[in-house]
């Protein structure tokens, strides 16, 4: 039955290509590192992907609306730092219990602020979230600038990020599965999901259909903030501490993952399954690039090229190549 038919051809194609490339990457990885395809390594990749996946869920919603959230880096930071600082704010016993919810709540507040700016003040989301990112950075710097803050993760956080509730399945993966399932349900089975896609297509028509579009925007930005903060909590748990700029490396890969998963950057089109594929793809790509040691090849040729160069160039080229594969935008025509 035709439900989410949103240009079904187009993003199915993108999702298929994305999964195809995942297979290619797995094969490439296997040829370099023999145990690349071993279950333990693959599970480790999924665990890494989970951090990105949780964050990308919120970002996908905002992009579906036709907006963008550039406050991700420091919302991640806020999530991690506020979770680790909770014990310092609320005392050791209460603080430990509240750590995770507090971190996520702080991220949600940032998201709500973004939502108010974009939905009610009608500010362009790129600029408003950029401003919020700087404000969040400033607040966190102020927080750490004065005294030595609590920056150690709680035991629970460590468990959440590194433990395995179900044998063989890392906890972050469970978190991602839960978040992802909720996202899929919302997007495909609820009125809110319909409204999100519709707003990404034509907010004016949605307004005239009797929907409160501002509320939808507010909700999605809040979710984006919550997801980013949740990612920060997981990262802080994984490293067992929070640190400045912990979220900076996540902005571009998140956007890339969402777009490579077939979501249209202008909004209105995209499936969560595609985003899953995009996240796994980016994770695998980064892993392979770190496993490859290209600097030795270049050294053989007499060039001193750092490994990071190779990583950056390949990253960029792969994205462009994939997008060209997905099919181009319709040219402006009659």
């Amino acid at each position, binding site marked *: 039955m035709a439900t989410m038919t949103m240009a079904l051809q187009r993003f199915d194609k993108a999702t298929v290509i994305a999964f195809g490339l995942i297979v290619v990457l797995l094969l490439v990885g296997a040829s370099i590192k023999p145990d690349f395809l071993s279950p333990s390594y693959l599970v480790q990749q999924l665990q890494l992907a989970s951090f990105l996946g949780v964050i990308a869920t919120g970002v996908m919603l905002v992009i579906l609306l036709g907006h*963008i959230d*550039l406050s991700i880096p420091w919302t991640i930071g806020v999530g991690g730092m506020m979770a680790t600082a909770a014990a310092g704010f609320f005392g050791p016993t209460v603080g430990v219990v509240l750590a995770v919810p507090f971190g996520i709540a702080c991220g949600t507040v940032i998201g709500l602020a973004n939502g108010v*700016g974009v939905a009610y*003040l*009608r*500010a*362009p989301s*790129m*600029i*408003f979230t*950029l*401003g*919020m*990112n*700087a*404000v*969040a*950075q*400033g*607040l966190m*710097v*102020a927080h750490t*600038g004065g005294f030595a803050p609590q920056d150690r993760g709680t035991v629970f956080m460590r468990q959440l990020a590194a433990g395995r509730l179900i044998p063989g399945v890392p906890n972050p993966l469970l978190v991602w599965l839960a978040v992802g399932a909720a996202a899929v349900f919302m997007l495909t089975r609820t009125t809110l999901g319909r409204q999100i896609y519709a707003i990404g297509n034509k*907010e*004016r028509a*949605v*307004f*005239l259909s009797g929907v409160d579009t501002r509320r939808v925007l507010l909700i999605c930005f809040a979710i984006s903030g919550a997801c980013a903060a949740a990612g920060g909590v997981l990262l802080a748990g994984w490293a067992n501490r929070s640190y400045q*700029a912990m979220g*900076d490396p996540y902005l*571009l890969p998140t*956007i*890339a993952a969402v*777009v490579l998963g077939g979501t249209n*950057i*202008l909004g209105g089109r995209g499936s969560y399954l595609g985003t899953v594929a995009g996240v796994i793809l980016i994770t695998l790509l980064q892993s392979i690039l770190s496993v490859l040691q290209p600097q030795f090849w270049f050294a053989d040729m007499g*060039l*001193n*090229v*750092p490994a*990071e*160069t*190779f*990583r*950056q*160039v390949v*990253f*960029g*080229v792969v*994205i*462009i190549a994939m*997008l*060209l594969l997905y099919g*181009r*935008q*319709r*040219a*402006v*025509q*009659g």
Partner: protein
Amino acid sequence: MSVASAVNGRRSREAWGHWLAAQRGILIAIAIFAAMFATYGWKQEVGLTASIINTASNKGALLALVAMAQTIPVLTGGLDLSVGMIFVLSNCLAATIVNGSFLMTALGVIGVLLVGIICGTINGLIVVYGRLQPIIVTLATGAVYFGFALALRPEPGGSVNFEFADIMTRSFFKVPSSVILMLAVVFLIWIPYRRSVLGRGAYAIGSSEQAAYMSGVPIARAKVLAYVLAGLLSSIAGLLLTAITYSGAAKAALGADYTLNSIGAVVIGGTSLFGGSGSAIGSIFGAFVMRTVGDLLIVFDINPVLQPLFVGIVLLIAVSLGSLRLLRIKNRLDLYR
């Protein structure tokens, strides 16, 4: 007064009225900057000496040039997220080739500018002929350009011809070279571009790409040129950075910082992110507004580490000022595109 001259008089006034309305964004940016700089000068114990003006100008010019670079693709309704990386790449390249004899230095400068143009051309060609969204394309190409920057300068270092650096960073008769540089860019690049068919075409595309196509505007050429100029201006900024720091360094954080701040400067300067209206001159003042925030913090004894907080607040305020127009809306439907 005859009827004809009365009509002419009215028409001239109307013409001025329209011109002023069109410049509103720039004028607001100038006003904000003037207020901030005046406060800075007033609070500054030593007063506004030539040396202080020179330092402020050099710092601001870097962002101003990158902001001018960003302005042009934004006019077409696009965005260039690689300007910061072209800036860094140019810096690293300049620290490698802009040295030696006068001839070598000159060739080096030309080389850096060429690289900026090439990067911009690549961006433009992929956006136009690949028919991909600029934000994603330039995100990806930015990574590639940074990769090359890193290959050129794995460690910070390099050198630059001393005379060249000196000329670029000193003042002539109390006027900083960087100001002269910006004026040169405005008068030799921006204003001719604005008055050209392709430059106006950029505004047309940003205003309504469909209508521009129907009107026969050369869309492909205008868009590619926009990205080419962005690359060129970013590389000029990179040259200036090399002259100021005497070295090249491939720092990803710096590139990202300049890219994002350039967007902020463009908006504060009155250019619309939707395209179709705005000016690189406004972006210059937008950049200086953002840079002066840091100076004001120092002068008011606020921990400079809090700079991002205040820059962010300035951005939010600037953007919210735009929301004041909402108060005049009488039909809710106008809120939604």
